[in-house]
């Protein structure tokens, strides 16, 4: 096989796009809560790591196929989301700062519990496809990344259809636009906000399961995924699923080429620099709509 510059470029692009799809899924949970409940959930990364561990242990202890384990990790994330929402988040939604601090407390609780329960050793989940690749012309497409990408994009598409085509989905979007007006129209705002929180932890659980198959992880990795989600969120603007997918892809591409040209250490600097420039010039996100300032 001949390695030309074009092949290298293409190979980087394949990796970037496949990872970018997963980044979009990683962000979606955060974006949902942020849009519908106006809560910046600092513990979002911990929910992802929890999903990764749930998938890992179900697969290890029950000897199940990793993909079936994900299906079991999602209900576990839902239960966790329900508990957190009932015990902590509900009743705090009125102010903006209190939930942030509360969710930081949650970050400490979850990180410490996971460290105590599962130690800080890095782990990763081996699947039957881990070492497999498909050759597409001169390029190699890793099968496991392709599966993770397809699964992410399908889930995001399903979520998009749910939010735009169903009655409940439209009600959720109404809350995101203006919760007070939504309440006067008879939409059960509190109940749908709880539902959204649990949905968001399910999405985090799923993306965690996928990450367990793609990368090695440990309990302290949560904040890194949180920051990646921030970057994607700033790229996409709130409440815009096609934007989230595009944002995920841009982050994936930026990271891949950034680490290739600048070295892996500076790759995150590229992402954050991109984020800050975007915030300054497009505060509603690259794909966000212009909004009138509220009084």
């Amino acid at each position: 096989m001949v390695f030309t510059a074009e092949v290298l470029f293409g190979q980087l692009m394949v990796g970037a796009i496949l990872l970018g799809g997963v980044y979009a899924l990683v962000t979606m949970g955060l974006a949902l809560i942020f849009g519908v409940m106006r809560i910046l959930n600092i513990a979002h990364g911990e929910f992802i790591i929890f999903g990764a561990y749930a998938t890992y242990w179900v697969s290890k202890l029950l000897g199940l196929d990793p993909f079936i384990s994900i299906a079991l990790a999602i209900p576990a994330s839902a239960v966790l989301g329900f508990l957190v929402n009932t015990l902590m988040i509900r009743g705090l939604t009125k102010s903006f700062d209190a939930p942030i601090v509360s969710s930081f407390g949650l970050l400490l609780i979850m990180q410490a519990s996971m460290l105590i329960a599962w130690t800080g050793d890095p782990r990763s989940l081996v699947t039957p496809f881990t070492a497999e690749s498909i050759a597409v012309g001169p390029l190699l497409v890793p099968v496991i990344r392709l599966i993770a990408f397809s699964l992410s994009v399908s889930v995001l598409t399903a979520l998009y259809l749910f939010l735009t085509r169903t009655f409940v989905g439209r009600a959720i979007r109404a809350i995101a636009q203006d919760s007070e007006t939504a309440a006067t129209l008879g939409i059960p705002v509190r109940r749908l906000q709880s539902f959204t929180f649990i949905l968001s932890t399910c999405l985090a659980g799923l993306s965690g399961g996928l990450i367990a198959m793609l990368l090695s992880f440990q309990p302290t990795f949560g904040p890194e995924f949180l920051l990646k989600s921030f970057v994607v969120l700033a790229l996409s603007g709130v409440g815009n699923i096609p934007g989230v997918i595009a944002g995920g892809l841009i982050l994936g591409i930026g990271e891949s080429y950034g680490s290739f040209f600048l070295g892996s250490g500076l790759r995150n600097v590229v992402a954050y620099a991109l984020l800050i420039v975007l915030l300054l010039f497009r505060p509603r996100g690259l794909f966000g709509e212009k909004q009138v300032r509220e009084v």
Partner: protein
Amino acid sequence: MKLGFALAAAGMVVLLSIPTMAAENNFIITLAFIFSAYTTLALAWNIVGGFAGQLNLGHAAFFGVGAYVLSLFSTAGMHPYLGVLGGGAAAVGLALLMSPLLRLRGDYFAIGTLSLAEAIKIAILNVHAYGMRVAPYPGLGRIENYYFLSGLLIAASLTTYFILRSRLKLALVSIRENEVLAAGSGVNPLKYKVLALVVSGLFAGLTGGIYGYNLLYVPAEHVFSIEWTIIPLFMVLIGGRGTLTGPLIGAVLYLGIYYLLQFTITEISLLVFGLTVVLIIKFMPQGLVETVLINRVGVKRASIP
């Protein structure tokens, strides 16, 4: 009011007499140093996050830049306290650099500042992966550093007190409560927010500088750690934002609980600590000063600085 001044004077006497009373006990002086550092940071954060209501999640960047610039000055062979002042000046520069972010709405400001702090940390980690050593300067040890820092703490308290007594507080609080209406009544929101950020950055940068010199070692991983943002933020929110009493009470309460847990149940201290934070926010979302002192005990709001 007289009680307030008596308490403040008593606090100042205790603060300044700790090295003498501790009889050069290193453990107590170190503890007092950490306490003063966090409290100064909390007072500094309170100016932007408490009075002006801008949720700055990049406070650690001021602290880190202060410490880092000190290490550069020290490597260049300059007097360490000059380096601390240089660190403060650099943090002011960073605050001015950050000021365009103040145009953003609250939640985006939080995301932007958090990312900026992370970006600076990673960039510096690339240059000095293993941190910088700081050479000790003859005659300037733990105790001198402690006096320097407690002077800083007193200055930050006085600054907060003067803000409370001035029109500046009205401008900042009106921005916090409703920025558009504040602009409509003749307050220039950006100008006041930048001013608040600069003062906040100055104190945080100076604290970072003296902290770095006291440690004699400046690892980027540590001085840019998000804990320098989050812990002061907790202290302010636990105590009560936009006051002088709030951050001070919050700092004592926070560090008290934290070290109590550290020394008793070391293994699970962070877990219990996280739980404590969640419970405090759940039952006192307005902070201790508002929920307990004003609503329960019935102290008049105007009499609490």
